[in-house]
């Protein structure tokens, strides 16, 4: 009788951590998939912005006399982002585009020719919404990544995480774009 009780207790003691491990493992997988998915959402938006840049240059080239240099930098940064050898370089180039785009959109309102042109208005709306989508998807990814990182690092889940090589995710840090609106004088 005693032997039976001891055996049951021992079996339970071995089985419970195993069950716990399975639950934790599954939830970690779920969070990791979520984080990967959120990352790919950023990618979708960045791709969309790349597609808009030629159109942007074509539309404003003749109008934004004082922003030729900015436009050129945008084109260069786009090329750099597309041909980037690694993730870090790519993020750097994309961040540069974000900063330049912010500047272009800020001065946009000051060109009456762009404000009265239907195509330019449509493009402005497209660009604004894409910039917002990029910022938002980045914020969402960071939320998801924070959640995942917490799960990975918390005890006792970190035991399972270490065992199955769940690594913490890096945050997508945005550049500190200056909020001051640049002034354009005619």
């Amino acid at each position: 009788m005693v032997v039976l009780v001891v055996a049951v207790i021992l079996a339970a003691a071995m089985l419970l951590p195993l069950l716990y491990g399975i639950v934790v493992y599954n939830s970690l997988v779920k969070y990791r998939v979520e984080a990967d998915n959120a990352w790919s959402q950023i990618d979708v938006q960045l791709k969309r912005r790349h597609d808009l840049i030629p159109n942007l240059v074509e539309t404003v080239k003749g109008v934004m006399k004082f922003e030729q240099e900015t436009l050129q930098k945008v084109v260069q940064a786009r090329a750099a982002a597309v041909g980037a050898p690694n993730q870090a370089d790519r993020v750097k180039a994309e961040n540069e585009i974000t900063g330049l785009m912010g500047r272009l959109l800020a001065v946009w309102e000051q060109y009456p020719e762009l404000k009265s042109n239907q195509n330019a208005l449509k493009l402005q709306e497209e660009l604004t919404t894409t910039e917002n989508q990029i910022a938002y998807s980045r914020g969402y990814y960071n939320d998801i990544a924070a959640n995942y990182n917490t799960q990975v690092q918390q005890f006792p889940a970190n035991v399972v995480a270490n065992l199955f090589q769940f690594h913490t995710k890096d945050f997508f840090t945005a550049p500190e774009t200056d909020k001051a609106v640049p002034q354009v004088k005619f």
Partner: protein
Amino acid sequence: MFQALPQETIFEARAKARRDTVLLFLLLFLLYGACFAAMGLALVAFHAPFLLHPRSGFFWGVAGAGLSIGALIAFSQFFIAHLKTLDELSGVLWAKAADPADDVHERVLRLVREAETATGLRGIRVLVIPSPAMNAFSLADRTGAMAIGVTEGLAGRLDRAELGAVIAHEAAHLTQGDSRLLTVAGSLCSSFETVTDAASPFQGGVWGARGTWGRNRRGGSLPVYVVALIGRTVARMLAMALSRRREFLADAQAVRMTRNPLALASALRKIAGKYRGGDDAPPGLQMVFILNPEAEGLDEREGAWADLFSTHPPVAQRIARLLDWAKADASSLPDGTPEDVSTSSSSPALEARYMAFLGDTWQGPYTFTQLLACGQVKPDTWVCPEGGAAVAPAGDTAALALLFTPQVQGSLGREQCPHCHVALVRRSYEGAPIAACPFCSGTLLTGEVLERIVARRSETFTEAQVKEALAWRKAQRECSIQEADCGVAVRCPRCARVMSKAFHLLLTRVVIDRCPYDGTVWLDGGELERIQILVENSKNL
């Protein structure tokens, strides 16, 4: 009272909302049980006090029965409220799906897509209430279907950043699962209202009138009434407190998402100063809106009483908090008057007129759209600018070559003007898709587009136009539609049936033609502008 912007992620916010919901449900559940038990006891104590001898056991019987009845009602109320689908809820609010062909609606659609990206939610439906009021709401049902809705007035009068902030606020409600919380709160409150109304001794309540207890038939419900009244008050206080807390949290989440507290503050200020659609919003649903549609004054007041009984925090307090986050003061907000959005609908190229050699004679002069609509100009048709002598084929004239591009041809509608019998040209007016005749400038509108246009203000009118319209309105007799001057009957350009005549509104007295089959509206030239001017200047009528 600076409060730091909460740094909680959407997961923490969601978990908190879940805890709130459970807590509220438990509290209200207890309240229900206690109240119904007390009601039963009060009823017995009032009419048959001898039964309540502590040793008789009847006391506990009544208390237990009251408790279980209360619990039963609580659960059934909850489930009935919970079973409502999104379609039913949006139907109650008269909300319709947004129209992607409409510029203003398209902007709302884009902003909701942005909010989806920011929150990770998918498939939020976008609804629009065709009303000039200013308000926004969010809904979710048991199946997980979600919707964000705005009124036409809001979509048309806020700028992009403000509208985005409002939509972010509503999306925050959806991520936090507030809709479910509000469903619970609303349904539980409403059942107390039912009981109080039924037991009221002042309106011949049903319980008193049907009382079989013998003496004093009407006063019999007084104790029940008092208990129910207390219960209702407490239930409302609980629900309102939570609802207000959720509003603050949603504001905070919206700011966290858009990083623009000022936009939300100025949007709130604009909504607060305008009509918010109190007449259209059903009583149980005020809590789903960003600001209470009933501007009863309680929302604006601070202090203990208002704190206990309003669904939303005072607007001033919400704006103050937002300004705090922006580290700005009230002077940085626009003063509530929407800025004029000037649109340049006419360009010199469209104003130029040409003579065309059609049939066997020179005809015209016609504008670009008129040439397009008459449909007889081919690339080899001879044309000549008005007053000029240079005759050339239309295809070789730079300004007219556009006529033959698929883009311009595509704007040609299939419908014909009922007066001029030429094709109507599709264009955008106040952001809404309409079809207009370039000759008589009559317009064909579909369904609710007329309501949309009336709610919008981006088209501006000259002093003379306004004066003319007001004078026209003054000259109208106050008579029925049968006696009014209706002009000739027209056939619907869509289905060729005779359209019926009706006043647009008794306020404007503009006679419009409406197809009785599909609701299509035909307006003769100038009538649309007249309606707009009269509605916008209704104060001067």
